[in-house]
């Protein structure tokens, strides 16, 4: 087993419980929905009707948009857990008093850092993907029972939503990973507080001096933000839906902003690792 695999395995073993929480939360939601549905079914008030949406949407639209929407909650939960895991990536061993033990191993700090980064971000991606797969299967059964299951549209809805959240997770997780190298505890909140502080300071300076200095929080939001909402009515026909899907691909993946997002994430990882590498171990 090579050293990086050993590090990954160790970091997964340590973070396993936290990584699994989104899965349990979503499973809990399903259980609640299942219970409510069962109660409604047995009391005779169960009525699932997806055909009442205004404008009589097509099956393609329903398959696409419902799968996309289904990823909303798991996506948000995943983001929260990416922050929770990455904000302690480079400082948890210090709080756990095991920093000396881990740093006394003959393995590159870059490997150690990369392993924590991967587990914190990609680990959550894997869990989110599993939830997406589960949603997809459950949705297939539900939609097939009330309308028509269009696998291509359902898949596109799921995958585009999944990629959107993965990208947001990459940026937010990288930022959170970076602050974990700077602060020892509650790193994300401390980092956010500093950014907000700088934001207010710059706003005041801009107002007083009549300058137009760029604002960090505004830049961050712009960097994280993937898409501009499009009115539902404009994508109700299959033709406009196809255009919308193509536009969504362009918006979430195939553009310069994606490259900038990846580059900024990479930069945050590198700077965080350099800070971590040069930190004294007392």
């Amino acid at each position, binding site marked *: 087993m090579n050293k990086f695999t050993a590090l990954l395995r*160790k970091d997964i073993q340590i973070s396993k419980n936290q990584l699994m929480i989104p899965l349990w939360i979503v499973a809990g939601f399903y259980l609640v929905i299942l219970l409510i549905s069962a109660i409604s079914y047995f009391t005779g008030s169960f009525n699932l009707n997806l055909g009442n949406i205004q404008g009589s949407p097509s099956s393609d639209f329903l398959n696409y948009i419902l799968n996309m929407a289904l990823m909303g909650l798991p996506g948000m939960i995943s983001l929260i857990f990416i922050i929770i895991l990455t904000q302690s990536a480079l400082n948890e061993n210090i709080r756990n008093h095991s920093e000396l033990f881990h740093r006394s191993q003959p393995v590159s700090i870059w490997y150690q850092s990369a392993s924590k980064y991967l587990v914190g971000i990609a680990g959550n991606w894997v869990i989110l993907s599993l939830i997406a797969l589960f949603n997809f299967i459950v949705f297939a059964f539900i939609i097939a029972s009330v309308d028509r299951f269009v696998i291509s549209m359902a898949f596109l809805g799921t995958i585009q939503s999944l990629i959107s959240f993965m990208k947001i997770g990459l940026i937010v997780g990288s930022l959170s990973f970076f602050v974990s190298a700077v602060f020892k505890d509650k790193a994300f909140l401390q980092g956010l507080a500093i950014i907000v502080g700088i934001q207010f300071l710059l706003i005041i300076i801009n107002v007083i001096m009549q300058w137009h200095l760029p604002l960090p929080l505004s830049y961050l939001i712009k960097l994280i933000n993937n898409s501009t909402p499009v009115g539902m009515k404009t994508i109700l026909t299959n033709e406009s839906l196809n255009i919308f899907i193509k536009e969504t691909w362009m918006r979430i993946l195939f553009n310069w902003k994606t490259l900038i997002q990846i580059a900024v994430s990479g930069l945050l990882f590198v700077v965080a690792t350099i800070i971590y590498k040069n930190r004294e171990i*007392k």
Partner: protein
Amino acid sequence: MTGKSAIKTKNLNKYYGKLKALDNINLEIPQGRIIGLLGKNGAGKSTLMRCILGFLKHEGEIEILGKQIKRHKESTHQDIAFIPDVNSLDDRLTVRQTIDYVSALNISWNHEKAHTLLAASDLDPKQKVGNLSKGMKTKLYLLITLSLDVKILLLDEPTLGLDIVFRKEFFNMILGEYYDETKTIIISTHQVEEVEQILQDIIFIDKGKIILQEEIEKLKAKYSIYTVPAEKRAKLEEHKPRIINKTLGQTNAVLKSDISIESAQVVRPTLSDLFLEMVGGSSE
């Protein structure tokens, strides 16, 4: 002292803000010896060890087995195993996971030895490290360290907080399972009595300064404990010892062996006696 140096420091200084934690340390530690780094709490023992490993930024030069150490390098740990306080193990891993993790990262890992040591111990591989007693954690740390074929072993207050049984077992295992004449062991402690029987050389450190580096046998030959009746205390005071002890109508002090005091009883000093004489204060 002969042979190639295991560790060498030249003009080593370390500051914490304005506090000088290490003050111009010049050391040459030969290979194949068991060395005690003794000093009171806060004397600079841990700081010196962490500087040697590159964990702390410092001024001056450090060499390990002929290689210069300017800052922390992972390759250093291929030659050195380091045991700080046993609580530094990762509580979140199980015993098995800890062993697998360390074995995968260290090319010098001896699987056969690890297996034998694990079988001989009462460690439960499925148990979380966080649930182990301090004594069991020590056993695990020992198992890990003794399964590594490294040239230098640095022990920083390794038995702190352990009861006497585990402390004895710890040092017996280090001697029995690890030490041979090609390996160097440096033990930092303030519990002087603990290590007296196993050490070959001694380094006394106080307030960040090395005040003595010597072979124990030579050091013990240089000094003696002189005991005289209490009324003859002045005879001891003539030689200006740092400490004069009173015991049941008698007084004694550690003095150079080459002096002569009429009617004094002369015995060999222990390491504690020498430590107290040279460093002063409590050796705990």
